[in-house]
């Protein structure tokens, strides 16, 4: 088999695993397990990205999806002291309808899309060749992704830094003041007691 065929085969196996993990996330009620599976989902995704030649993206997805997001989720679980979803998995009509309609539109829309991995797809012949050809001349760094990220589309990246800055000050704003723990929770508990009395 050629290199391309091997790539395609491993691709299929990894994507299959991805589906299995996703199914697990839907069904599992143990939140700790859900967070762990979400980390595994990100790692698998990173492997798929490596295979699809997106090494920078894979690096980031592994560091962020499997690293940062997992740490944050675990921190949240510790803070909210909740280990398990209250309601078991059950079929719900409206979300299922929305998901199915969205999926159907997408599958319908895919009919006319070029197959994955073809070299003459529209997005391989327009704009992208410019970056590949001109980067050595205009920017002269080996990593084309860096050239596009930092220079050709540098303003997007400035926006990205602004997004992460917003998240930073957002979390500061939401979590920096002293918590009013228990006050309302206690009140709720009293409310429940009153209900029991009547």
């Amino acid at each position, binding site marked *: 088999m*050629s290199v*391309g065929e091997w*790539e395609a085969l491993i*691709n*299929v196996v990894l994507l299959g695993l991805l*589906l299995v993990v996703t199914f697990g*996330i*839907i069904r599992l009620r143990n*939140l700790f397990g*859900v*967070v762990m599976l*979400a980390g595994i*989902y990100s790692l698998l995704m990173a492997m798929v990205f490596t295979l*699809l*030649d*997106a*090494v920078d*993206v894979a690096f*980031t997805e592994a560091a*962020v*999806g499997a690293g940062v*997001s997992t740490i944050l989720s675990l921190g*949240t679980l510790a*803070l909210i002291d909740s280990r398990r979803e*209250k*309601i078991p998995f059950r079929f*719900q009509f409206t*979300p*299922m309808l929305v*998901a*199915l309609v*969205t*999926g159907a539109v*997408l599958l319908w829309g895919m009919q006319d899309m070029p*197959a*994955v*991995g*073809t070299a003459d*797809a529209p*997005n391989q012949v327009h704009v992208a060749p410019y970056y*590949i050809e001109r*980067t*050595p001349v205009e920017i002269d760094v*080996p*990593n084309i*992704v860096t050239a596009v*990220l930092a220079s050709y589309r540098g303003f*997007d*990246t400035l926006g*990205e830094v602004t*997004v*992460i800055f917003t*998240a930073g000050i*957002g979390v500061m704003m*939401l*979590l920096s003041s002293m918590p009013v723990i228990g006050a*309302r929770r206690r*009140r*709720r508990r009293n*409310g429940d007691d009153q209900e029991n009395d009547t």
Partner: protein
Amino acid sequence: MMEWLGQFNYYVFAILMMAGIYVAMSRGNLVKKVVGLNIFQASVFLLYISSGKIWGGTAPILGDGLTQPISNPLPHVLILTAIVVGVATTSIGLALIVRIKEAYGTVEEDEIAEAEALYEEELIRAEEAEA
């Protein structure tokens, strides 16, 4: 050569996307909702990255003696940005969950609604007592 594969990646994207939407919309637990959103967002990364791949191609890093075609770097750049956006949204969402838990003592949607109704009653009672 690879016709049998066709748009397999895109089909997987569609399934993951549906799963993400379903989890984000149907589950009452707020943490699970955020995980659902993560699945949903990450599925879109798959769409972009798959579209940039050339089978048998190589990563967009230039070197000597490169003979293979180079996969499209632009989707990679876009998805790097999207990943950052995703983690930013997740962190704000989780911080909100922490605050909601502190305010209402629960992270289950229907219980929050009850607690909120209780809070409103209390407000009204407090105002009446004041008047």
